[in-house]
């Protein structure tokens, strides 16, 4: 098999070869490390590679497997983790200069889970500084500068999981861990043409992860397919006493069986008519073609509409207030001025000004919205819409002025902690990926995985890869 194809093999195939000893975890790790060193640096995809950790873990995995101790589908599989997840003894910079020397002496729970199943950490993925919590005007708002899109290096990957998107799209690791407060998994997945799962809030522990807006932060995988996302999600989901926001132990765990999920239940799909006010013509074309696929292969597809209200406003105020609290020391010390982005240097001061009354009012609106969405999900298992209304934007775009569009689905999904999965569904007129997102009821991560898998069973967009040399 040509080396290029190995880089893009899905987890299931890599796992099968590793389990049957046809593929060495050490060799796989080394070729991913070599490719990451060569291509990753051109894309600004990594905060740093971790070759020593990776090769130690790979050798241990190989030894275990040779002795008949195969841990499961992630054993011996290389991955990257967004640089806001603590890895013991390794700098965790949060993408921001004020934290460039920060080192934790413990692993984030997500890293612990992935260690437990034998996955191999090959590097920390680049990210937007402080995950964009202070606002940012340019794609270059990162210690690693702008992450370049593997489909067109003059374009951005989207943020804040900017490196995670680039790494998976460029075949630099089998999967990557990203985080989302509002859009940071779904948007990079769409821009980079990969599959990305934003789990239900509380399904994945944030212990050891940078807090931006604690009531909205979520951790999830970006990978080659919905099935791959499900396999990673099954490894990292679960109650964690160290993160009190995680759902109870009887509801936190997620088990996954690819053979069962497509048969689990007929899905009633709500095709959202008001997710975006305006879409790029190339995106529209891809989405219309996707709608035909969905209408053909799903049990029921009807038009649906999101509730209307000041939900984006509530989301913005909650994020701003919580972010100001999370980074109060940074703001008050003045070290916020060390951030790269001109907006990030000052927006925190504005965020500090929101009153407790307004924050609580936003939380009340959230409560009302949760009930409205529960009612909507009485008619549908999943809602479907374009993941983004545009394809990847040029690197130099002023995001504040030129990438400004209402995003009610992103606001509602993140305010209510709803699971969502973005999958590739075509290309724009400039040959940039377009994403389709499936959004489900809180707790029904299985539903969005089932829906996305069904879509990918009948399409091959997720098997397309950028040509990189």
């Amino acid at each position, binding site marked *: 098999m040509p080396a290029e194809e190995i880089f893009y093999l899905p987890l299931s195939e890599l796992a099968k070869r590793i389990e049957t000893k046809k593929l060495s975890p050490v060799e796989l790790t080394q070729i991913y490390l070599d490719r990451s060193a060569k291509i990753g640096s051109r894309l600004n995809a990594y905060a740093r590679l971790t070759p020593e950790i990776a090769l130690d873990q790979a050798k241990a995995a190989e030894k275990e497997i040779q002795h008949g101790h195969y841990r499961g589908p992630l054993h011996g599989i290389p991955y990257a983790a967004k640089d806001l997840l603590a890895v013991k003894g390794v700098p965790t910079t949060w993408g921001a200069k004020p934290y460039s020397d920060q080192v934790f002496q413990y692993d984030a729970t997500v890293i612990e889970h992935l260690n437990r199943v034998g996955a191999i950490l090959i590097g920390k993925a680049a990210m937007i500084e402080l*995950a*964009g919590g202070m606002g*940012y005007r340019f794609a270059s708002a990162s210690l690693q500068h702008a992450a370049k899109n593997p489909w067109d290096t003059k374009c951005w990957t989207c*943020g*804040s*999981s900017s490196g995670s998107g680039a790494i998976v799209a460029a075949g630099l690791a089998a999967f990557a861990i990203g985080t*989302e*407060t*509002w*859009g*940071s998994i779904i948007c*990079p997945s769409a821009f980079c043409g990969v599959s990305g799962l934003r789990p*239900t809030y*509380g399904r994945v522990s944030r212990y050891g992860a940078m807090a*931006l*807006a*604690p009531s*909205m932060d*979520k951790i999830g995988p970006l990978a080659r397919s919905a099935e791959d996302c499900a396999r990673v999600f099954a490894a990292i989901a679960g109650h964690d006493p160290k993160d009190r*926001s995680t*759902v109870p132990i009887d509801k936190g765990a997620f088990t996954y069986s690819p053979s069962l999920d497509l*048969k*689990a239940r*007929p899905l009633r799909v709500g095709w959202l008519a008001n997710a975006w006010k305006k879409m790029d013509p190339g995106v529209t074309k891809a989405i219309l073609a996707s709608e035909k696929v969905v209408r053909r292969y*799903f*049990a029921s597809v009807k038009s649906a509409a999101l509730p209307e*209200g*000041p939900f984006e*406003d*509530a989301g913005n105020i909650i*994020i701003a207030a919580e972010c100001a609290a999370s980074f109060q020391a940074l703001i008050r010390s*003045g070290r916020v001025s060390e951030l790269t982005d*001109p907006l990030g240097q*000052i*927006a925190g*001061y*504005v965020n*500090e*000004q*929101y009153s407790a009354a*307004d924050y609580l009012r936003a*939380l*009340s*609106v959230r*409560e009302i919205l*949760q009930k409205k969405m529960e009612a909507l999900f009485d008619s549908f298992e999943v809602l479907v819409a374009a993941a983004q209304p545009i394809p990847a934007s040029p690197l130099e775009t002023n*995001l*504040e002025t030129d*990438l*400004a*569009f*209402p*995003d009610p689905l*992103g606001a509602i999904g993140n305010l209510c*902690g709803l699971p969502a999965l973005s999958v590739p569904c075509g290309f724009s007129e400039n040959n940039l990926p377009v994403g389709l997102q499936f959004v489900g*009821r809180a*707790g*029904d991560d*299985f539903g969005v995985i089932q829906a996305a898998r069904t879509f990918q069973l*009948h399409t091959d967009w997720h098997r397309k890869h950028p040509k990189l040399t």
Partner: protein
Amino acid sequence: MNGKSSSSISRREFARRAAIVSALSIVPPSTISANSSNPEPALEQSSDIPSLSPESQAEAVARYQAILAVYGSRFSDTQKSDLRRLCFAAQPSLDRLRAYTIENGDGPALYLKPLVEREKKTGAAVIPRAPSPAMKKP
């Protein structure tokens, strides 16, 4: 974890409304920060400034002045101008939020508790059933 600029919505609205506001004129000069070492940037007529009620204008100005009162010496004139714009940009979101009807008994989601009770129903659905005709491969 924020994939978009937090001020994107209001920016668009500002451009649409294209109002001219001389907000500082309604604030007594005494409220201007004594800590500010730089002179106040000139207030220019700007399409970035949203159309606001007098009360909302006053609130936006107070927000800006509160920042200058504490941190004024930290900012360049360009940053002050940007801060002032952001203070006004924040206001329409607050106004819309406050205009939304909330009853006294509508409690805040003090921490986000996803409504996962429904999972009991969906969890049962992992038992395999015969696939529907619509789900079969072509």
